[in-house]
């Protein structure tokens, strides 16, 4: 007699949509349910989410995924959550109603609060650079602007959480108020070495400890679901980029993944001690399995990747769809000496020049739109190279392969360019949903659905691999030209010395 097949349910609560995906033991997708949700922009720089709606969507999507797979709650071995990071919800403990719209991670209303923070203190404690992205200033803003909220927070009547906390609190019927270390590491309130809320940071941001969730590992049974899927253990939570790192099975120090969307997020596992960056990268928690040692990660972001292609499509009108950038780039053999530095809102790691603006250099009458298209793709390649160089230098590890995911992995020429400029193989995995897969893996490990990390590794299959094919001398020469183009972007934008930000 065989018992019915069991599955892991992953919830990927993202910035623009929520997805529920059921995975089987071989890590293949059995059912997907997805719904988009609106973001609101009530004022310039403000980005808000309706957390109550996101919870309603999540319940509906779980039911839809279950129906689509034709299974019942007893066939779900565990629930794992991956979520947009840093987005901040504060809700009433008694009623479960959010006290205000959730403040989204791209929201910049707290820029004056963030710039008042001491970068040395924040960097030493949290591994982050003070910025509006992280939750701390968003909580502070809500406490400052909603009458009576700070007093209620001190009494523990209102609770703070990122999206993982919000969903877990709701899934458990208000019994569990917790977050995982990866999400906590993005609040700018957690001490990266003790993995606990830091009293001095709470003090600086005037946030009462009583409203904070408890910090747990990324993979352990937090509690059982109550109304939706009653009794099913909730066994994982991770920030989405960390979940992608885990889903890509980057379990060894030096393993790295890059997700290419409108921008790019590159995370490298650096092992069990945090690596402090001297190149402007962020130090963050990669994941923690139960009581095992924490795996730390370095994170570098590529500000403009797919959004540069969108600009070529919508701003210049050179192409009709994003995929056509590759067709256009294929009309020429090389960039013809043309380089595009897409510093649309400054240069990110490792340069950190917020005043810089983009440049196109090397123009001659020979340059066609094909050369521009090639320079567009190469810009993503070289930005990746700069982040990888910084990571190698900080960590003392040398990247041996780059695991990629995200929409831009459909661009074959871009993948080849990245392999060429990094001089390491670029590998695309078979399961495109790496974020959900990471959450599923962490949940499955916690309940023994999968036995260990090697068991997870066995599920991993390559869908494609691009090998470096550029001569070393040409790679070096092209990199020097790119670096000169970056210098040109800085030079063009510098009126006096704005210094570093």
């Amino acid at each position: 007699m065989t018992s019915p097949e069991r599955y892991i349910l992953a919830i990927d609560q993202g910035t623009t949509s929520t997805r529920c995906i059921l995975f089987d033991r071989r890590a293949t997708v059995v059912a997907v349910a997805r719904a988009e949700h609106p973001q609101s922009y009530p004022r310039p720089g403000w980005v808000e989410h309706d957390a109550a709606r996101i919870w309603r969507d999540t319940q509906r999507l779980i039911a839809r995924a279950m129906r689509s797979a034709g299974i019942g709650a007893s066939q779900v071995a565990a629930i794992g959550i991956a979520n947009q990071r840093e987005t901040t919800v504060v809700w009433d403990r008694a009623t479960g109603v959010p006290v205000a719209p959730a403040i989204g991670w791209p929201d910049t209303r707290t820029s004056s609060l963030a710039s008042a923070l001491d970068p040395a203190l924040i960097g030493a404690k949290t591994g982050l650079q003070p910025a509006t992205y992280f939750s701390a200033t968003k909580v502070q803003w809500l406490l400052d602007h909603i009458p009576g909220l700070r007093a209620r927070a001190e009494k523990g009547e209102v609770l703070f959480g990122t999206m993982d906390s919000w969903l877990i609190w709701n899934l458990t019927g208000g019994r569990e108020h917790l977050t995982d270390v990866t999400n906590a590491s993005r609040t700018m309130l957690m001490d990266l070495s003790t993995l606990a809320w830091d009293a001095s940071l709470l003090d600086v941001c005037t946030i009462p400890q009583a409203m904070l969730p408890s910090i747990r590992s990324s993979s352990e049974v937090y509690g059982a679901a109550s109304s939706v899927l009653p009794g099913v253990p909730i066994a994982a939570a991770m920030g989405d980029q960390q979940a992608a790192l885990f889903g890509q099975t980057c379990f060894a120090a030096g393993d790295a993944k890059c997700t290419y969307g409108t921008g790019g997020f590159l995370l490298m596992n650096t092992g069990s001690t945090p690596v402090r960056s001297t190149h402007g990268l962020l130090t963050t928690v990669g994941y923690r399995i139960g009581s095992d040692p924490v795996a730390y990660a370095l994170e570098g972001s590529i500000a403009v990747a797919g959004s540069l292609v969108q600009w070529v499509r919508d701003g210049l009108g050179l192409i009709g769809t994003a995929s056509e950038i590759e067709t256009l780039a294929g009309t020429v053999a090389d960039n013809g000496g043309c380089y595009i530095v897409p510093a649309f809102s400054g240069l990110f790691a490792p340069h950190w020049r917020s005043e810089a603006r983009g440049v196109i250099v090397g123009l001659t009458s020979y340059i066609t739109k094909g050369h521009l298209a090639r320079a567009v793709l190469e810009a993503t390649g070289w930005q990746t190279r700069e982040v990888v160089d910084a990571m190698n230098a900080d960590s003392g590890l040398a990247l041996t392969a780059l695991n990629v995911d995200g929409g831009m992995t459909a661009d074959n020429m871009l993948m080849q360019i990245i392999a060429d400029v990094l001089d390491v193989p670029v590998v695309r995995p078979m399961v495109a949903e790496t974020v959900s897969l990471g959450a599923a893996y962490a949940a499955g490990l916690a309940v023994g659905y999968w036995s260990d990390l090697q068991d997870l590794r066995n599920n991993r299959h390559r869908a494609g691999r691009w090998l470096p094919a550029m001569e070393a001398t040409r790679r070096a020469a092209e990199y020097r030209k790119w670096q000169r183009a970056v210098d040109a972007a800085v030079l063009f934008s510098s009126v006096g010395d704005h210094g570093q930000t």
Partner: protein
Amino acid sequence: MIQSIERSSAVLRLLAAGPDRLRVKEVADALGLPKSTAHGILRTLEQVGFVEQDPRTARYRLGRGLLDLANVGLDVNELRSRALDWADALAGRTVEAVRIGVLQGASVRVVHHVFRPDDTTQAMDTGLVVPAHATSLGKVLLAYDVTALARGGLDPYTRKTVTAPREFARALAEVRAQGWGSAVEEWEPGRAGIAAPVRTYGGLVVGAIGIYGPVERICDGRLRPRTALVEQVCATAHAISRDLAGPRR
């Protein structure tokens, strides 16, 4: 006569004659059509690329698709992007390598390749040009290409390559009759493939998707393509076609 084609032609002539972009109401008024009918015609013409709508003003003008009618209207890189997830799923289910191909002259250009998910070392075939008449991808593409018989010669690669024009024409007719094609040891000894056409609106074939691997895995003991694999390939091709004929993302 088919009324909707007459009306569509009138809409195109109107857009070609007008100096400016036109609103739906202007088109409807000029042709004496209900606004909903004019809107339906414009939306369909937009779908096939014959008109374009300015996203800001919502006005219509002639589309780029009219400038190059010989082109099928689907960029190969767009094809890869739209087929990516389906191709991964096909490789996962069949545990075979998946390729997507388009005709390039008398040959097939591989525009997408998903490795066989068994972690053996495999080289990326994207960009590779393979003979059309000796591969399943090529036979499917030639079967739906009206100029097929005017194309290049039928060079032999193995003892099984079909080289007689009449026999090859019969093979293409068989592909059309069954909706999929196969090639068993016709290009490389010991290797076989199964492929099916990927279509866009109106049934236009824009490419072919298929699996390719050792003959003992692709075929049964009598060297016939395994039914379960044929069904998987055809289901994937249908799914991609349905997606391509649907609204553009």
